[in-house]
């Protein structure tokens, strides 16, 4: 009996060793040099290159142009008939923070309480989220994952300071591989004067008089002002080394780069009145503001331009705010903002709808936005707005190789992404949807 157990153990050990060997051999390094040849290349940093070559080396773009030599040892991908673009950049998502929005256990996008400047999105990003490969397959290579950025996840409640947004690549074994920049913006949900609210505790609609709603609004703004004032004092104390018995306050500490004007605030506001108030507030507080949402940004376009405040537009795939707004109010806004010189990017403000980012940009073109602007508004503009344009957004030598190779216009509904590179690595396009598709496509005919 004993000998049988011994034998079993030995066999198990041998098997385990074999598995280890197999595993080890599978860990061979993927190629580090690629040459994509004969493609039409849209660098977004100059005119498109016909019949061009793009060389990727060690994660970066090593060369791009019409007369680029293919380096020895490079894996060559003949991209004749295909087009190369920078990967798309979705600047407001809850990527990795929320899996199934109706299931609380899978949602980490919104912390409780009004002030959470110290929470950081990157901390809770699940690299295994099924949303990542699904989103990637639509040509999006990097996103901002933004705490407290709305959605049903929040249960309808939103804080005032929601936490720090992180810029991430949509590929990586761990968050360390994925990080572009851990902290790119502090999220502020601008308080709104709401006379009609929905109370989740009683599941009923609440109405309150305007004066009462306004008082509540003012109270929130005053609190926010005080909070930032405290942060400013704290930052000053930090700057002076502080007293020896300095008690750390992590929340105020997190706000130090904000009050110093180093870290921008991503302020969520939609109504013209709220945007105006937020701009005035940030101006007074000397905060570097980026507007998110901006459904009525067109009403304050001159203000936004004069203050140099960029906008992340929430999906146009939503209805106009007011009944008497023009039916295409949101669709024509991007053209209007571009004409006024307001810088903007498109955002999905979502995970499962992130793959509609290109559709959103194309729809804006249909309603008057110049095509080049639309393309930039999903690539280089978000990169510039969040201060990571030195890494991503265009196809230029030295930048991180986040690249898509498509069979057409990346904003069009029917275009397919044929190859995708993130950090210079050829990244698979398969995903949960593709796998289920193939599985059930091959289901034998049911016997009825």
């Amino acid at each position: 009996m004993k000998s049988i157990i011994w034998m079993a153990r030995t066999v198990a050990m041998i098997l385990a060793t074999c598995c280890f060997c197999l595993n080890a051999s599978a860990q061979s390094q993927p190629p580090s040099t690629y040459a994509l040849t004969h493609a039409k290349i849209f660098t977004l940093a100059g005119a498109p290159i016909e019949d061009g070559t793009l060389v990727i080396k060690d994660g970066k773009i090593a060369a791009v142009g019409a007369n680029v030599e293919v380096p020895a040892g490079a894996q060559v991908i003949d991209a004749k008939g295909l087009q190369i673009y920078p990967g798309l950049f979705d600047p407001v998502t809850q990527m990795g923070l929320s899996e199934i929005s109706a299931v609380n256990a899978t949602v980490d996008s919104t912390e409780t309480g009004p002030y959470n400047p110290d929470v950081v999105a990157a901390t809770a990003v699940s690299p295994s989220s099924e949303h990542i490969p699904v989103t990637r397959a639509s040509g999006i290579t990097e996103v901002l994952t933004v705490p407290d950025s709305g959605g049903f996840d929040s249960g309808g409640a939103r804080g005032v300071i929601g936490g720090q947004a992180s810029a991430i690549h949509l590929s990586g074994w761990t968050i360390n591989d994925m990080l572009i920049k851990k902290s790119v913006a502090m999220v502020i949900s601008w308080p709104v004067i709401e006379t009609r609210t929905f109370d989740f505790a009683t599941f009923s609609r609440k109405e309150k008089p305007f004066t009462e709603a306004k008082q509540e609004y003012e109270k929130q703004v005053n609190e926010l002002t005080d909070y930032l004032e405290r942060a400013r004092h704290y930052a000053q104390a930090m700057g002076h080394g502080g007293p020896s018995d300095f008690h750390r306050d992590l929340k105020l500490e997190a706000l130090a780069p904000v009050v110093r004007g180093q870290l921008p605030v991503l302020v969520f506001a939609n109504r013209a009145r709220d945007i105006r108030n937020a701009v005035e507030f940030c101006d007074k507080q000397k905060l570097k503001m980026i507007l998110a949402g901006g459904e009525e940004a067109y009403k304050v376009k001159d203000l936004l331009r004069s203050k140099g405040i960029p906008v992340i537009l929430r999906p146009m795939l939503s209805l106009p705010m007011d009944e008497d707004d023009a039916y295409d109010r949101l669709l024509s806004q991007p053209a209007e903002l571009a004409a006024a010189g307001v810088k903007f990017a498109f955002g999905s403000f979502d995970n499962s709808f992130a793959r509609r980012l290109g559709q959103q940009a194309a729809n804006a073109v249909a309603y008057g936005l110049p095509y080049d602007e639309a393309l930039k508004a999903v690539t280089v503009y978000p990169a510039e707005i969040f201060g990571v344009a030195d890494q991503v957004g265009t196809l230029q030598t030295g930048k991180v190789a986040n690249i898509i190779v498509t069979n057409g216009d990346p904003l069009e509904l029917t275009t397919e992404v044929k190859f995708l590179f993130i950090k210079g690595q050829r990244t698979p396009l398969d995903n949960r949807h593709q796998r289920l598709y193939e599985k059930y496509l091959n289901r034998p005919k049911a016997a009825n």
Partner: protein
Amino acid sequence: MQIEKRSRAAVVCLLCYFALPFLTRAANPPDAPPVILIQNATILTVSHGTIEHGSILIKDGKIAEVGTSIKAPKDAQVLDAAGQFVIPGIIDCHSHIAVDGSVNEGSVSVSSIVNIADVLNPDDIDIYRDLAGGVTVANVLHGSANSIGGQTVVIKLRWGLPASKLPFEGAVPGIKFALGENPKRSNFSIPGSTPRYPATRMGVEETIRTAFAEARDYKKTWDDYDKRMAGGDKKAIPPRRDLRLDPLVEVLEGKRYVHSHCYREDEILMLLRVAKEFGFKVRTFQHVLEGYKVADEIAAAGTGASTFSDWWAYKVEAYDAIPYNAAIMTRRGVIVSINSDDAEEATHLNQEAAKTMKYGGLTHDEALKLVTLNPAIQLGIDKRVGSIDVGKDADLVIYNHDPLSAYAVVQETLIDGRVYFDRKRDISERDAREKEKKVLMEKEKKAEEKKSGDKKPGEGKPVAGKPEDKPKPPQSNAVSRGAL
């Protein structure tokens, strides 16, 4: 509060709490010129291919002729559509527009007593918005709170006409069923409230079976009574009418279509079994996001499937939702449509249909059918609408590009040969509307000031204006919610 689109399906009842009935008045309905000729267009007939440089002759609201060499009759209004594309009007097989108030009678699990037709609101601005997105017909349903929901109605988006003119004449009425998370109230617990039966998918099945067992008995009492009456029995007493069971009897008699909200494969098969047990047909599965897993079974039952283009992951039962759903079901022989479930989504159903060419490789024609002919078949109205064929209603949409593109913009939408939406006209009227709004708001402000200036209580009644001060009836939707 922001509610993103993905949660809309999950919280459709919640949204209704926000949807206050604001006062608007639709535009006067457009005149119907007896004869219209659309010419020089690329015509996507859906039923018999594409006609380049084609013309469509419309007489008395019907398509009289389709071809390449139609001469404009005298007195015909000619719409030159050079470089433009014409498709049949888009049919949205799952809509909640034009409903006054909540779409859910959520208090009971079987709410077949209520009827959407009773609460149609012809002034809902979403009718106009969807019209501007090329939608001409919508299947207006209740929400999904109940295993057996209310009675549904198919409407034409005749913006400007009264509620009585919206229903699609002769369309078979329907009833909404709902399976899965919503009827078992998985995501809608109201604090302090007692959980409602059913709370499981098992209970959903039993709720439906119980209702049909009752309906069958009820039908029998009526059949017996009818038989006795027919046999000359003058003493026969008619059974007491049951308004809740009447619509279910109609289902059993094939006079009312069942449109069932569902997600998971198991619940799809469950309803097919129940339908078989009681001898009725399920006309369509709605959403049916796991339909691709049981496509053969759906096809064999002859049931249609009306799904989303690419929604997923907003709840557990949508986690296996894939954008290839429509394509797989189509390939397995199911009549498939793409629906909106949402007033905004409806404004670009053409784009949503286009996605099936990418996800699953449907052809251009197959993709276009998903929002035209197929939903027409599902709603039993394909003899009247769904394709560009002689004799059908002149429900047409004119685009400036191939409609299966994100760059296509609706230029005109026609219903029954009337131009109900005209982009150029809409744009040209905007300044006037803006001015009108300002005038109205100014008036309102003055009235408010006057009111607050009155010192004696009870004297704050609005001052009746002189006749010339009365605002003219708005020509369009240009009345701000703040103004009235």
